[in-house]
Every structure is written in structure tokens, then in C-alpha cells.
């Protein structure tokens, strides 16, 4: 550490600070976020007001929480198209078990967590066992769960939603944990924002500073090479899918606890938004490269744009066009930056 490090530092001194920054996968998204922030802040007073900030941070946090495991999974070389619909499954399961089957809400939460972990395990197991692309496997679970969510909800409730969770005993502390607001200069900030920041930090730590994180990079970068040196690629993949499901449990239950109600179709279509956030944040679609912080920034861009368009008084019908354009721009920028960064090191 001592002499070797000093000598090494001397040798790498010629790598400039800018280039060191450019090598970071999240660098491009940070610039993008800054541009979007400045742009909407000049367009709208509400956007830069505290209530505005609270609003777009809230939107960003919902996407951002799921973007954490989705980014990790993508770095590990896989997609989970069922990530969105799983949030619905988790919330609906808790709701139905509590309000219709009379289970205590805490017990329901535990059971629904186990259920979600089982779904994640199934996804991961099928992907590692069959060797089929995770795109296909999770497309299957996506469609399957979509049917189950609607089918079971209608069967049990005769409606397409589960409600009244806010009336059960033990709801109050849950609301405090999952759905309370923190007041800053008179405006309520959702506690989910705090969870988002915390889980992003934890996810980033997991990726960059643990053995598991090293295995995630390796599994996504080159599964065969990883296996040859003793990385348990199968178990890493399964763990990542289970992590995604655990986050879906958190997000889905945040929804039903915050509003007391959840729709049977909730989460459908969101899976692509999570992937967009991860990709804007610098995750390589083919795996092996990316950043959890970047995915959080991607979610931030998404939240700012969605609310910013409304605040700027534009027609929000065009929102998805912006997201699409931004995605393409981000991918191109990331590609250019990465190439430049890698060339500069030769």
C-alpha cells in the first residue's frame, strides 16, 4: 500500500481530472440532469418553488427506487420486464390478505414479501437454468402476473381495485414509514424521497464496494470468464432478480399504504421507464457496465421532465416524445463519452 501506491500515483498523475470524470458511467446523465434542471427552472416559477421541487422529486422517487435494482440487474446482464407489474402484485397481495382474508397487515406484509421473493427466484432460476434471454422469461412473468393481478383482484373484490387498507389496525405506523411527508418550509416532501436516496446509496455501495458488486459486473461483462475464475454467476443472477422483486414489494406497498387503495393494473408499463432511467444513467444494455447513482439521476431527469412540462404550461400529451428523444440522446452521448474515455487511457 505505501511505496507501491505512491509510485503508482506518480504514474497515473498524467490522467487528467476531466478524463477521470468522463470514465464514470454516470457523468453523462449528470450533465443531462443539470441541463434539464436549468431549462425548466428558467421556464417556470412553480418548477423552482419548494412545492414544485417536492412534486418532481416525488415523481422521480417512485421511478428511482425501482431503478436501483433494475440498474444492478442490467449491469448483471439481464432485464426484468415484470419489474413494473410486480409492484402491483406486491401491493394487491398485501391489500387482499389484509382487508379480505383478515390477516393482520404486518403478517400480510411478510407474506407478500415472501411471495415477491419467490417470484424473483422463479425469474432468476428460469433465466439461469434455461439460458434463455431474460427478455423472454420475464416477458412471460410480466404477462402472467398481469393476468393474475386482474383475475385474482376481480375474483376476490368484484372490482378492479383493493381499498380500505387505511382502515385496518396497525396502519398508522406503516403510514409513517412508507407514506408520511416531511415538512420543509411549509411544503410536504414525501418520505419516499428519503428512501430513494438511502437505497440509491446502499445500492451503489453494494455495487462498488462489495464482492457481490464485483460479481455483478463480472456476470454481466462475461459470464463464461466469470465462471472460469469461480464467480457464482447463477447465484448472482438469481440474487439480482430477487432483489428486484424485493424492491417491487417496497414500492408496491408504499403505494397501497400511502393511498389506502391500489388498482389492479398498477405498474404496467413502468418496467420500461425503469429501464430508461438505468440506460440514461449510463448502464450498458448488454451488461457489465453502469452505475446505480446514474440510474437515480436518470429517474431524476424523468421526474423533472414529467412535472416540468406541466409547470411550463405545455401540452403534456407530448411528454413521451421528450422521454424518447432524451433516451436516444443519452445513449448516444454515453457511447461517445465512453469511447473517448477508453481511448484516452491507452
Amino acid at each position, binding site marked *: 500500500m505505501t511505496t*507501491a501506491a505512491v509510485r503508482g500515483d506518480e504514474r*497515473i498523475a498524467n490522467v487528467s481530472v476531466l478524463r477521470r470524470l468522463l470514465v464514470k458511467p454516470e457523468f453523462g446523465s449528470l450533465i443531462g440532469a443539470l441541463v434539464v434542471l436549468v431549462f425548466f427552472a428558467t421556464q417556470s416559477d412553480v418548477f423552482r418553488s419548494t412545492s414544485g421541487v417536492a412534486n418532481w422529486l416525488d415523481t422521480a422517487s417512485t421511478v428511482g427506487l425501482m431503478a436501483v435494482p433494475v440498474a444492478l440487474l442490467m449491469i448483471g446482464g439481464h432485464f426484468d420486464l415484470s419489474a413494473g407489474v410486480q409492484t402491483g402484485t406486491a401491493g394487491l397481495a398485501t391489500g387482499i390478505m389484509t382487508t379480505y382474508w383478515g390477516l393482520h397487515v404486518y403478517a400480510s406484509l411478510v407474506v407478500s414479501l415472501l411471495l415477491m421473493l419467490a417470484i424473483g427466484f422463479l425469474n432468476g432460476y428460469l433465466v439461469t437454468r434455461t439460458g434463455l434471454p431474460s427478455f423472454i422469461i420475464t416477458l412471460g412473468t410480466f404477462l402472467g402476473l398481469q393476468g393474475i393481478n386482474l383475475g385474482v383482484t376481480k375474483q376476490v373484490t368484484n372490482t378492479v381495485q383493493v381499498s380500505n387498507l387505511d382502515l385496518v389496525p396497525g396502519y398508522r405506523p406503516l403510514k409513517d414509514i412508507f407514506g408520511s411527508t416531511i415538512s420543509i418550509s411549509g411544503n410536504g416532501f414525501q418520505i419516499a424521497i428519503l428512501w430513494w436516496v438511502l437505497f440509491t446509496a446502499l445500492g451503489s455501495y453494494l455495487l462498488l*464496494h*462489495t464482492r457481490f458488486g464485483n460479481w455483478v459486473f*463480472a456476470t454481466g461483462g462475461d459470464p463464461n470468464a466469470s*465462471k472460469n475464475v469461480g464467480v457464482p454467476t447463477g*447465484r448472482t443472477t438469481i440474487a439480482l432478480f430477487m432483489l428486484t422483486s424485493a424492491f417491487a414489494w417496497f414500492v408496491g406497498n408504499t403505494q397501497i399504504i400511502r393511498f389506502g387503495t391500489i388498482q389492479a393494473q398498477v405498474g404496467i408499463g413502468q418496467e420500461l421507464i425503469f429501464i430508461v432511467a438505468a440506460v440514461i444513467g449510463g448502464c450498458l444494455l448488454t451488461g457489465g457496465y453502469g452505475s446505480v447513482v446514474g440510474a437515480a439521476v436518470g429517474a431524476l431527469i424523468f421526474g423533472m421532465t414529467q412535472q416540468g412540462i406541466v409547470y411550463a404550461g405545455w401540452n403534456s400529451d407530448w411528454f413521451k416524445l421528450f422521454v424518447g428523444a432524451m433516451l436516444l440522446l443519452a445513449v448516444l452521448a454515453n457511447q461517445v463519452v465512453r469511447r473517448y474515455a477508453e481511448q484516452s487511457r491507452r
Partner: protein
Amino acid sequence: MTDSEISFDSQRRVHQASAVAPDAPLLEIQNITKTFGSVISLSDISTTVRAGQVTCVLGDNGAGKSTFIKTLAGVYQPDHGQLLMDGKPVTLSSPRDSLNAGIATVYQDLAMVPLMAIWRNFFLGSEPTKGWGPFRRFDADKAKSITRKELSDMGIDIRDPDQPVGTLSGGERQSVAIARAVYFGARLLILDEPTSALGVKQAGVVLKYIVQARDRGLGVIFITHNPHHAYPVGDRFLLLKRGRSLGDFAKSEISLAELTGLMAGGAELEQLAHELQRPGSEGPEGSADAGPAGDEVSEAGRSMLRDSSTLGQ
């Protein structure tokens, strides 16, 4: 996340100890046979590897070199025959078993992840950790400094261990892979065609690292189809052809010319030389990488030797 809970220190064996008895074979391979269905991949193969020596395994494509490596690496189990490590029979039923026995394989695809930093690759699968319980984390400082030190001990000059492996040249990558195997207490290093994808100069660099590893007291199995790379570094030569052994020679028993002749199939080589020879002319005189060719080969055969070293790549 709970895989290979063997602690970091126990994984890193002290390999210097292996230099104690240089005459006793480190690994004896006795009459190994491996079949896949009706295909005989290896038939009755034997050789020995000693500490501080290089055993070269030569053969053309389809000779069974890959099956041979994978048997030693624990990927395949032989149908007949046995492996003796330090004189004791061993069963290698997984790559992990093989690693634990001190056999490290440097694969042709290098078992490195191009997008990952050198230090992350160096410790991939055997990451050093610090801290306890949920705070157990990848000791990046230690990993980086060890990587830098081990590489410089091998004479490899890496500017920045944060550099992705994908930005290294082929020879550098091979060298990092060898340095990694040496560090992780390998007593026996299996190198799968380490020079085949490289240019002449880069191949020379890798050969130097093979000699380095040998001089550190490791047994080396060097798989190649290029006798010119094998002969200068090898102490023992096992020739494979279509799954069978053409012989297992000590260096004193065979010359480079004989080795090349055997590998290309003697008569076949001369036949080919005749076919390729331009009527009324002979090959150009003198070539840098021809090596010390024996006197007993014809001029045509010698020019063939020169060509084979480039053709083989």
C-alpha cells in the same frame, strides 16, 4: 452472496514451498482416457510435470488439447486413468477443486472481463475483504496495491490499475492473467495457447513470463501448436494427435526439427513442402524466428518450419 466462504488467506497458498523437492513430479498424468459418446477425445495419455519446469503439450487442431486442459482444470473427469498430485491420487470434480489443489488455468479467452478494471479482474472470484458482518466490503486499496506490486514483480508495467482490461494489448492481458494465477498460489500453471493470438514480439513477451513463472518454482503446462514457441522454454514435450499420444519426450531426447516434424506428421510435412515448393526455387535464406533448426532437415523442410510458425497464427 454466500459463495466460497473460504477466507481470503486460506485461498492464497504459499507457493514457494513447492520448490522443496524439485525432482519429485508435481503432477503425474497416468493413462488418461476421455470419451464423449462414441468419440474418443483422449486415449491413454501420460506425462509428468515437475516444479520449476515447463511441460509443453503440442498438437494441431482437434488433437485433444482442449479436452486435456479441461480434464486437469476439473471441467471434465477422465473415464480411465488417474492424476497424481505430489504422488497422491486426486479427483478434480470441479474447477474449484482444481484451484484448491493449486492448479490454475489461464484460458485462451483469458477469463477476464474486458469492461472491468485490472484490479477488479485480478481478484475476480477471490476478492479480499475487510470489515465484519454486513460491513464486510471489498478491500479496494489492498486489491489495487497488490495488483500493482504483483504485476511489477512480473516485470509488467501498468500505468493505472483502474484501466479497463479491454484497453490492454493481447500480450499484456495474457501477462495479467499469468500474474494473477501466480499470485493465487498456483503451483501448477496451465496456459492454453497463450501465444497463438499474438504477434511475434508480443509472443516473445509472454514466453518471458512463462520462464518467470518457471523460475519462481511453478510447474507449467504450456499448450501450443507452435513448436518454435514451445522448444525454447520447454523441458518436456507431449505430442498429441487425434486424441492419441505421439510421444512424451524430455528435451534431451528430441530436437526442434524432430518436434516440428512429428507435429506436422513427418511425411505429410515433406509432401506439403514439395507441393508448395516453387519449381526451380528455394525459400528465402535466414529468418528471425526460425530458431535453432536441426541439421537433419532438408532445405525445403526448413523453409516449411519457418512458414509453420506464421501459418500457425
